[in-house]
């Protein structure tokens, strides 16, 4: 067994090296700087929990949590519902053109945020953008003036629409794989027992889909809350603070205002929020990895 340990460790050693260098060390550094008043270019002094106390009373930080939660709520709900719906419709062997439809749905996911972000900037442009052009064709002239990315009410929706467009394909594929993994015998057995199509969907398919739904919800949540690109491309965090989410807050605090200690403390809080979700997810996932 010693042999197994020796060679096992030999093969996984690059993994341990990368894991320590690029995940453990950054966390320790962030934890350390979070306890200091470090400003870029100056030396760091120990200040204990002052940064954290300040964060709890900083309206900009509160607003960034609120903006993150709002965008995550809208886009995760939208993405998951649409993805589940599409996967249920696509899970049909007799469907004509299902390969083409799946291809079109995944296209936005494999292209990058910035190139597509440029297109969405022009789609959302008031009065002369693509959306305005479509509204004018439909005779909805009052909607043409909507300031999608520059009004505080609409900006989170504009960003969420972009996120839903961009990421729903991924979750559709995952749901579809989950549906394909449900043996049809279950539904057939239910039908033999006299269940109609709706009943077998409600009492057989839905409960069997629960683990994958939880998985998709958590993955969608942690990836959406970490997104920087769609906000940077569409609103830059504005108007005012309406879409200044946690990643934008961190980026600005450090790379624009050079508040290293303060930004590190905010990063730690951000990590704790995500870690809590990750732990829940990992626990729910574990069984499927070892099956």
């Amino acid at each position: 067994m010693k042999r197994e340990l020796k060679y096992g460790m030999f093969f996984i050693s690059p993994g341990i090296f990368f894991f320590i260098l690029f995940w453990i060390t950054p966390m320790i550094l962030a934890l350390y700087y979070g306890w200091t008043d470090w400003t870029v270019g100056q030396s760091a002094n120990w200040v204990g929990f002052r940064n954290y106390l300040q964060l709890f009373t900083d309206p900009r930080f509160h607003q960034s949590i609120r903006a993150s939660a709002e965008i995550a709520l809208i886009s995760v709900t939208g993405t998951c519902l649409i993805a589940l719906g599409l996967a249920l419709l696509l899970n049909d062997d007799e469907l004509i053109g299902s390969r083409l439809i799946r291809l079109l749905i995944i296209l936005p996911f494999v292209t990058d945020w910035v190139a597509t972000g440029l297109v969405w900037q022009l789609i959302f442009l008031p009065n002369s953008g693509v959306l305005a052009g479509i509204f004018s064709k439909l005779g909805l002239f009052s909607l043409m003036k909507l300031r999608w990315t520059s009004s505080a009410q609409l900006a989170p929706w504009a960003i969420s629409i972009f996120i839903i467009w961009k990421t729903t394909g991924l979750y559709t594929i995952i749901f579809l794989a989950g549906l394909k993994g449900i043996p049809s015998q279950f539904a057939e057995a239910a039908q033999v027992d006299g269940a109609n199509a709706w009943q077998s969907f409600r009492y057989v398919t839905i409960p069997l889909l629960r683990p994958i739904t939880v998985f998709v919800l958590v993955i969608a949540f942690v990836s959406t809350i970490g997104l920087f690109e769609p906000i940077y491309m569409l609103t830059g965090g504005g108007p005012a603070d309406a879409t200044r989410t946690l990643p934008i807050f961190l980026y600005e605090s450090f790379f624009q205002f050079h508040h290293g200690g303060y930004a590190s403390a905010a990063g730690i809080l951000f990590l704790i929020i995500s870690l809590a979700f990750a732990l829940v997810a990992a626990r729910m996932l574990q069984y499927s990895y070892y099956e």
Partner: protein
Amino acid sequence: MHRILRLLKYLILITYSLFCFIPFLWMILAAFKRPQDVLTVPIKWIPPVWQPQNFIQALFEPRFAGYSLSTFMLNSIFVAVITSLLAIVLSTFVGYGFAKFRFRGRDTMLWGMLSTTLLPFSSVIIPLFLIIRMMGLLDSLWALIIPFALTGQTIFLARQFILSIPRELMDAARVDGASELQTFTHVIFPILGPAISTIGIITFLFAWNLFLWPLVVLSSQGKFTTPLGLSLMGLGSTFLVDYHLWMAAATLAVIPPLAFFLILEKPYLRGLETLSGLKG
């Protein structure tokens, strides 16, 4: 009744596919337009005058401190290809260790590395920046390659593929006198074709699409990657509002990842399914 439901099903699927595709269609058509035909009410979908030379202008005109989109795209290709190659070698190596050896703490370590895939990268960007600065890699393309050459995702993908390889293959190599390293390089690695294409395409797309990280570590425009170069355009930038050229640049920028995706669609989708823990 059944007929109507079926029709409704197609209607919903086609509508959503169009929603996915129309932004691309509009982008490609706008890339061929004259500037005055891009944003019009009502929309002119078909360019009244086709201008394919927009692509040449977008690609080669040195608008960004003497550099053009072609420089950014070459940088991106370099970064994406090297990251993918490193990811293929490193993650199959590590995945082999996790899949075929039994020792204490193995599953805990695997679980730890996997859990990093559930943490938002943007939350550790500041300390990671400090580490890259200490390594002397700021403003170097290697700063975009090294941190992503081995990730929890690709280790897990490689492990899942290697789990299905029968142990007898390794035992036979050992009986023939091969060392553990030779067993990996001569017996295991050559039969990992499917794993290699899956890890390759997932890493390529990931590396090509990186934006926040290059924004933070790169400063000279000659080293910019495609997304970073594209972000110099856009509303509110200091560059001219040449919407037709933006769209030509955006179209060119999505061609390499799309081409790679279309070639390796099957391994890519298989990878996504494996990552969701559904398939061994």
